[in-house]
């Protein structure tokens, strides 16, 4: 792990950050970085861009939405063109100018950072790179906050991540009451720490021991889990034709909540809008729960029923993704969909059901 950074000749290090200096430090970084982080309002906690006078709520318990929007806004202008025929370049589409100055996400949950690594498999491929997502990814520093007390619906350890998972993070913070112990994992993280003026070195051995203790303690407190060991060996068709989908999908109202709160769901729609002499092309999050997602212009719909759509979501996460990339399932165990689903369809139950399913001959 973190092999790429070792290749670059970077050695990871530890620093301590006194909480009294935290706000001053991150404010200092604003000269070069746009900051994102958890903000609470009357309806809960969201990961948002932080205005000058807003600071991240590092004691936050859980955010309804994940951090995926930092790289992948729910609505993003991707192209524009002029429709004014008196102009030379009318009707020729160009890339919309978005801001790709450096940004840092503060207090991201380790499993959300891992989710971004999974989403990267979709947006950064051998054949095509999504320039909007990839450019945002390249300029983003992920400053994770280890979860000392995982919530009751966190099942991250059973899906290959965990409360102190370091994957895809540039810095991992451990909350030690009066201070943070920070593990600077990459040069990108190092540059951010420098921009904040955080430079109190900590002993490497001691710090690592402390991280290990915190991690073990936190992992011990995870009360929820799923079984995924047998998913790989089943065929797509046997799971697809399993008898449990009808009952499982009955209560589903086909809203997009589960897909929108999910840190690993990346599906999107492309929409054009025109106003006066300007044309815009946007992309918006989309959801496989909507019948429109797959409906042809002719009216034909390969997934016209609710059951087909619910099955698609779980098959994609727990089987297609696993088979396609061989990087585990497309779920990081954050439990957001479990909590937000209006009718309480629980991915843990579905996953266990799929894992335990044996075809009857």
């Amino acid at each position: 792990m973190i092999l790429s950074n070792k290749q670059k000749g970077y050695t990871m290090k530890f620093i301590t950050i006194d909480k009294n200096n935290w706000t001053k430090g991150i404010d200092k970084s604003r000269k070069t970085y746009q900051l994102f982080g958890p903000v609470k309002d009357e309806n809960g906690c969201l990961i948002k861009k932080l205005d000058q006078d807003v600071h991240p709520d590092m004691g936050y318990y859980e955010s309804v939405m994940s951090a995926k929007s930092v790289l992948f806004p729910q609505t993003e202008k991707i192209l524009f063109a002029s429709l004014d025929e008196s102009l030379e370049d009318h009707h020729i589409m160009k890339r919309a100018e978005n801001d790709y100055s450096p940004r840092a996400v503060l207090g991201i949950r380790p499993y959300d950072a891992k989710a971004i690594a999974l989403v990267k498999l979709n947006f950064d491929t051998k054949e095509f790179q999504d320039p909007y997502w990839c450019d945002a990814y390249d300029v983003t520093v992920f400053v994770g906050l280890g979860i000392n007390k995982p919530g009751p619906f966190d099942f991250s350890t059973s899906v290959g991540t965990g409360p102190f998972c370091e994957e895809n993070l540039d810095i991992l913070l451990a909350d030690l009451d009066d201070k943070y112990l920070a593990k600077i994992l990459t040069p990108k993280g190092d540059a951010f720490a420098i921009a904040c003026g955080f430079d109190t070195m900590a002993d490497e051995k001691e710090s690592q021991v402390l991280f290990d203790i915190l991690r073990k303690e936190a992992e011990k407190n995870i009360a929820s889990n799923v079984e995924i060991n047998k998913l790989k060996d089943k065929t797509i068709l046997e799971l697809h034709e399993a008898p449990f989908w009808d009952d499982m999908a009955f209560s589903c109202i086909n809203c997009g909540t589960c897909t929108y709160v999910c840190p690993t769901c990346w599906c999107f729609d492309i929409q054009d809008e025109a106003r006066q002499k300007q044309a815009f092309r946007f992309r918006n999050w989309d959801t496989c729960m909507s019948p429109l997602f797959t409906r042809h212009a002719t009216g034909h719909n390969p997934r016209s029923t609710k059951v087909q759509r619910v099955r698609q979501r779980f098959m994609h996460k727990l089987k297609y993704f696993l088979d396609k990339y061989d990087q585990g399932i497309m779920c990081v165990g954050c439990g957001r969909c479990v909590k937000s689903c209006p009718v309480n369809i629980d991915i843990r139950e579905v996953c266990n059901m799929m894992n335990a399913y044996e075809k009857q001959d």
Partner: protein
Amino acid sequence: MGNLLEHMGIERNRVHFSWISSAEATKFVDVVKEISNKVKELEPNKKFVKDYN
């Protein structure tokens, strides 16, 4: 509908309802005049307008 728009903070005088037969040309002209005057008094609307920038 007028009530709900007003409830959401749209000025009452921006929304008008009228029932005009195709034969009532003068009524049509009068109503349009009256509406344009009332809306002009309100200055440009900033609500329910999309911003593309």
